[in-house]
């Protein structure tokens, strides 16, 4: 049941979105954050074959089955995270970036991320004044079980607060900001460690950007999880 083929015709020059029939799994191994359980990962491989040519393109990535929810807890006013229905006590740290000259490598990322795991962290918060972290960063967070809080590129100091108040309407080109945000989401969205997208640091993005991000990032109705998971599909 973990292998499936679909046939389709694509007109010349067309660029389409195609959703494959869903794959059913019975009691798959779930992905858990560091200290809560195993970081079970599956290798997902998608290939497209053209009848006239043969294999035309392929893509593969590690994937973890997990359900991450978070909401503001009325009792504490803090954000409560749940993974696979279990509340998680967050032990997290701030992350700016690995190197100020952007000398980023898989080896460096693995060392940095494993260090956080060894410190018994289970979350890393990527600060809005730094980078949208790279797939290699997320790959090792997937492997070592570090949830990632990824901020977009807005900070209080540079976008509407600070002394003197600066750039009250954020970056000059809001369309460019959203192009970068959407492309970053497409680059990173399949990593099980990605737990939360956040508009910025100590500041919400300008209203139009904030609305667009919330709209783009809301969960597709098909995946709106019932409050408990007993409902049948």
């Amino acid at each position, binding site marked *: 049941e*973990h292998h*499936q083929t679909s046939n389709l015709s694509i007109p010349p020059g067309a660029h389409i979105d195609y959703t494959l029939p869903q794959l059913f799994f019975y009691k798959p191994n779930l992905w858990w954050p560091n200290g809560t359980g195993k970081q079970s990962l599956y290798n997902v491989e998608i290939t497209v074959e053209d009848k006239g040519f043969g294999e035309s393109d392929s893509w593969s990535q590690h994937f973890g089955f997990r359900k991450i929810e978070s909401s503001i807890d009325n009792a504490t006013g803090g954000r409560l995270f749940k993974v696979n229905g279990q509340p998680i006590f967050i032990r997290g740290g701030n992350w700016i970036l690995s190197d100020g000259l952007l000398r980023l490598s898989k080896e460096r990322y693995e060392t940095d991320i494993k260090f956080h795991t060894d410190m018994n962290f289970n979350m890393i918060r990527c600060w809005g004044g730094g980078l949208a972290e790279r797939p290699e960063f997320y790959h090792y967070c997937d492997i070592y079980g570090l949830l990632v809080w990824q901020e977009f590129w807005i900070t209080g100091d540079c976008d509407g607060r600070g002394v003197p108040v600066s750039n009250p309407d954020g970056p000059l080109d809001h369309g460019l900001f959203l192009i970068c945000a959407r492309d970053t989401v497409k680059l990173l969205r399949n990593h099980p460690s990605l737990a939360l997208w956040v508009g910025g640091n100590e500041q919400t993005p300008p209203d139009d950007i904030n609305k667009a991000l919330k709209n783009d990032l809301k969960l597709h109705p098909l995946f709106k999880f019932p409050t408990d998971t007993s409902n049948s599909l």
Partner: protein
Amino acid sequence: MAKLGKTNLDSGWIAARSTEIHLDGIQLTTTHPPSLSSNSSNWIEAVVPGTVLGTLLKNKQIPDPFYGLENDAIIDIADSGRDYYTFWFFTTFKCAKSANQHVDLNFRAINYSAEVYLNGHKKILPKGMFRRHSLDITDILHPDGNNLLAVLVHPPDHPGIIPPEGGQGGDHEIGKDVAAQYVEGWDWMTPIRDRNTGIWDEVSISVTGPVKLTNPHLVSSFFDNYTRVYLHSTVELENRSARIAECSLNIQVSTELEGNMFLI
């Protein structure tokens, strides 16, 4: 026939300051390809992926900013002007594709904008530090398979000026661009003199057949207390041929047992 899939271009790059090169990108990638050998060369060995400062440090043209007060010895872009940190990056690569194959040149991130020249053809990479660029270069590859690539990388539009007292985000000008803001300095960090200008993430060539697969989206949904789980997958497909593509799309989910043993 070129091998299908992605090949990173992460070696053999050279670089030069734009103000020291008096050729344009078309000449660099046709009649006057640069090299390190010619003694009058202003070209130096480059670090790609990396930033301009990373390349200058590798060639010992700046002190290492991470030691002592060395960062003060490196001229800030506010004082030098943007051109001083506007750099050419050049490399060559082989790619002998066959009929029906398509080739893309991919930049996973560039800071902040760039002009790409390949075998005398110019393409503009739009602004933004956090976006991928993918150029279909199928029709401009060299017939003999030897290709010349030059990239002129420009710094952020608003690099800002660092006030004498420093502070979080300097004069905050960098906030006008879509780029990392820490580079103007923060309470825990001195300013980065080139504002992280450069080809800072991987560059690759990808070879496909007539149909290209991009941006898969995997979502899982859970029922019956996580015992019944569904994997939903969406992909973008592009048919770059002039005929209808009759395709089969395969998805395979496996867990690696150990070594090369896979359970499907």
